[in-house]
């Protein structure tokens, strides 16, 4: 492609460049494809094994045939069955509730801070950035003992006390939101805001009417990242959830089988598939946005 653009009287150096670009396109292409294949296998093979096992009859749990055999839907039925004290369906609903509320609160509060941090100059700005960054690196385990004591004295550790899960989740969802949104806002064409204000918009109007629609993709991506991080949380949920508010990660980790000490592998794989597939679909649909959000914020995975 570039060769056509070269002038007819190509210099020796340009010849050489052409020579090298030509050379680059042979052997390495095959090696490149092998590399790509390794990455695809890396990402998908364990996931594939999970799905294959989820559809495999429990009597053939350790069948090592690489393709689906003894296909059945029984595992999915068992996963949702409450006969053995598992409440997986209920846990799915809990995870959605906790994830949606956490994301909504983090977005509502974080969007203003991110706007100020990326756009305005104010005293203590780098201090605030430092706090947000420090919070995003904060070890969740340091929250457990003080919050455990507070929540138990408030009677939050039984019944339907979703706030006992949502409030700790804010501790990582809010920094993530502010951090990612600040990066997104930093790349937006803010000249438009200036011109809107020249035309007589108030700062609020300029933000609402001009910038918010432009920022929608960034906001959406950030919301997805916040939701995924809340959906995937385990440490805090395992300590603060009750049998009524248990999210899916906790439910899966403590799935009980037919007999004690017998791991219900296929059922767990079916449950894991159900938990993971919505995320995989999200990732497939929004992969471009998610990658840009991940790298923009440099958020933790």
């Amino acid at each position, binding site marked *: 492609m570039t060769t056509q653009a070269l002038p007819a009287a190509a210099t020796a150096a340009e010849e050489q460049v052409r020579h090298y670009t030509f050379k680059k396109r042979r052997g390495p292409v095959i090696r490149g494809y092998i590399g*790509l294949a*390794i990455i695809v296998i890396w990402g998908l093979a364990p996931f594939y094994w999970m799905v294959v096992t989820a559809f495999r009859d429990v009597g053939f749990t350790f069948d090592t045939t690489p393709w689906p055999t003894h296909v059945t839907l029984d595992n999915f039925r068992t996963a949702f069955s409450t006969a053995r004290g598992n409440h997986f369906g209920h846990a799915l609903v809990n995870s959605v509730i906790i994830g949606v509320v956490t994301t909504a609160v983090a977005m509502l509060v974080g969007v203003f801070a991110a706007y100020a941090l990326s756009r305005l100059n104010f005293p203590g700005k780098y201090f605030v950035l430092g706090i947000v960054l420090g919070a995003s690196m904060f070890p969740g385990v340091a929250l457990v003992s003080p919050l455990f004591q507070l929540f138990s004295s408030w009677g939050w550790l039984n019944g339907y006390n979703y706030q006992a899960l949502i409030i700790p989740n804010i501790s990582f969802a809010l920094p993530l939101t502010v951090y990612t949104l600040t990066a997104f806002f930093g790349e937006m064409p803010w000249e438009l805001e200036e011109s809107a204000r020249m035309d007589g918009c108030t700062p609020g109007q300029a933000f609402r009417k001009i910038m918010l629609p432009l920022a929608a993709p960034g906001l959406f991506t950030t919301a997805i990242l916040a939701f995924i991080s809340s959906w995937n949380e385990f440490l805090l949920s395992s300590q603060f959830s009750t049998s009524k508010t248990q999210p899916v*990660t906790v439910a899966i980790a403590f799935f009980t089988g037919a007999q004690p000490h017998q791991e219900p592998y296929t059922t767990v794989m079916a449950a894991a598939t159900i938990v993971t597939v919505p995320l995989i679909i999200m*990732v497939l649909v929004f992969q471009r946005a998610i990658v840009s959000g991940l790298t923009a914020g440099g958020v933790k995975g």
Partner: protein
Amino acid sequence: MSTVAQTRRAVPRRRGPKSLNAGQGRRGLLLVLPTIALLGVVIIYPVIKAIVMSFQKDAGLDKATGMFVQGGYAGLANYKHWVLQQCNTPTGAVTCGPGTLGGQTYDALWVTLFFTVVAVAIEMVLGLWFATIMNRTFRGRGIVRAAILVPWAIPTAVTAKLWFFIFAYDGIANHLLGLVGVQPLLWTGDAWPSRFAVIIADVWKTTPFMALLILAGLQVISSDVYEAAQIDGATKWQTFTRITLPLVKVPLMVAVLFRTLDTLRIFDLPYILTGGGGGSGHATTTLSILVIRQIRAGFNSASALSTLVFILIAVVAFLFIKFGGADVIRRPPGTAPKRRFWRRATPAQATEGN
């Protein structure tokens, strides 16, 4: 300045161009206030409370008198418990036995550091390799990007259960090892296999994140630099060590920083995959797992340990940012240096890269 002032006076209630920036300070503070307040409630207050608690005695039966006591000021006893491994007995403080949680501090610290160093090192090398592969323009990049996001998107709890199944005694891992003549391993039972089971699962899950951050750094390196290197006769290895590595250093260090801090607080994987056990019963007990175990025994001594974990992580983060070149505080547009951290190559390359 004076013209602006005059305009303002001449046209009341209408702002001149200069005043567009007026009131930024107050507005800025007002906008960040809710975030700071909320972080104060969910992080800063609990941290302060944890520090206060760490100087209190645990409520419980007083071993000397057999009476139930409510705690009270403990001084440094909780810290001595973890750092100097002193356990209280009716006859006074003695060295904690190997069976007690207090005796596990340094084992847990060692295991945590081992996980961190080994896992992050492997992730860094693999991440660089993956990023280099993905940086070449091939067809099917979308598929690769989707595939690499799968391990990232799967919840860690699910990852742990998935690898628990893979590493089962009759599982696929031992089956594949058997094909090359390796005896089956007790992946979640023996000390060293269970440690490597945790590391393998962690590497699988988080290498994609590493690769994507490094890829973002690679993509802004102009191809001109590589062509120039080729013309100058640089070997592939020279190109990699003299061009790629220096130019990708900042995003790489940021990725390593995030992964290091993440692994220092690792909990989900060893807790679910191996139950923190293996070997003598705590071969994969990390600092976070130790804190969680201690909470059932007493909040206050758990607070002391979690405060120590917090300090450890803060110190590591500080060292990384200060000496490791992980430039994580980015400056907003308008203040130099303009390029955000993952793009900060030389200004010329950064512009061409876009």
